[in-house]
């Protein structure tokens, strides 16, 4: 596929667009963009984007598969929905960004060591593990994602906040031993597994 990127034959053909429409959450909206750029200007993290949403949509239409899926742009989304409410074509841009990120992640094309990507994975695993998010474990997992030493450093750096939270009874150090969980955790996990199975089958994910 990547070879095609440089070949006029495939450029501006709809192959990648169709792939996005089929596999990316809300991907069927990409064709509706009219390139006004309001999303690009509305993003609070816009200045950090390599590509703006509207530009990503144009790249998809131009068949730039590799560049799009390897972009770290969609990982900058803070889910603030500014773009969504301003888009004159009602594109669910936030969701398309999530969808593209997810798709790139599942295909293994998303940038390695992308911090948001890693956080998102840890978050989901944390969630599936207990059915509810365990904030302490989530935090620790994050601090230690780059290894033990870095983790201790990270944790120390944020120690005052953590202690404050504990004092304010808004962080429970005992959660490390269990914490909130679902009674029917098994059922919950079965739902997640089944949903994932259905989705993976549809999208052709193998991992």
């Amino acid at each position: 596929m990547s070879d095609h990127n440089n070949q006029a034959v495939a450029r501006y053909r709809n192959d990648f667009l169709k792939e996005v429409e089929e596999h990316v959450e809300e991907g069927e909206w990409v064709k509706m963009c009219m390139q006004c750029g309001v999303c690009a200007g509305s993003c609070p993290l816009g200045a950090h984007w390599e590509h703006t949403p509207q530009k990503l949509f144009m790249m998809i239409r131009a068949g730039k598969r590799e560049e799009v899926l390897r972009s770290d742009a969609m990982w900058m989304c803070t889910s603030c929905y500014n773009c969504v409410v301003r888009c004159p074509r009602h594109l669910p841009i936030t969701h398309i960004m999530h969808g593209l990120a997810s798709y790139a992640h599942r295909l293994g094309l998303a940038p390695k060591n992308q911090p948001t990507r890693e956080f998102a994975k840890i978050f989901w695993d944390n969630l599936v593990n207990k059915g509810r998010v365990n904030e302490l474990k989530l935090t620790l997992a994050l601090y230690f994602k780059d290894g033990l030493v870095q983790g201790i450093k990270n944790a120390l750096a944020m120690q005052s906040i953590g202690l404050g939270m504990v004092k304010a009874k808004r962080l429970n150090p005992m959660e490390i031993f269990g914490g909130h969980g679902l009674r029917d955790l098994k059922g919950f996990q079965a739902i997640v597994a089944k949903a994932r199975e259905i989705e993976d089958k549809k999208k052709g994910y193998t991992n």
Partner: protein
Amino acid sequence: MAKKEYAFYPGCSSQLKASASNYLTSVNSMCKTLDVKLTEIPDWNCCGASIGYAEGGELPRVAINARNFALAETHLPGQDIVATCAACWLGARESKERLDNNSVLMRDTNEALAAAGLHYKAEVNIRHMVEVLIEDFGFDELKKPVKKSLEGVKFAGYVGCQTNRPFGIDGESFENPKYLDKLVETLGGEAVDSYDQKVTCCGGALAFSEPEKSQKQIRDIVESAYDHGAEMIVTPCPLCQANVEVYQSEINKKQGTKFNMPVLYYSQLMAVAYGGSMKDAGLDGQLIRAEKLNAITQK
């Protein structure tokens, strides 16, 4: 006024000893005054939050939300689901809208739910606590139980993102929603209506992964509150509350600012105004103490 009953979806952050546990405390206190009965959806699960997308994908996220709906429909029939957390409300409401408008998604979701013997019937409504307050009570009703006016305290109403977009509350504008200001005034406080960061994103979703970027957002939010003469920030969102409050010290450390702006939930203000104690209002849970409110509870 007759007792109102709702299926309550507190969300992960509002559990005991979680980051927004004081939100829960104050909501309970507020509801007691307003004679509202909140019954937790039995065995509710996490909404997946927006950050769940990367690993979670679409169907698993929708399915876990649908699990909550199905539980509510089964155990608390006829009651609206009320969420206090912006992310929970948004995640749930978005899931519901997609399910109700997409028969394929509905079929797949119910197939997944069947794995736990559940079924979603598309009967339940999803609402935010603020919607309940405004629509089911209205400002006039909310004013009635006020015992201690918040007079003399200036609040910047910080609405944030997800309580405001894409759905919003009370037909208010996305750029300049006024319901927090109206609520503050209802309680006798002073709303800083020129506050211009009302709907700025706090960067919460990236607080962990992109700290500099999100802290830049927080700095703007706090700075503007100071600039416009606010003494406290009030918000409806636990993620906003936590981020904006928690990271002030971090920003002070890195950038030499002297931020010390209390960040409160609307429910805390109401609990105080309704005569609650510091504990009832969850004020003991503040990292940055809201001394002026503490003082009012002592009156």
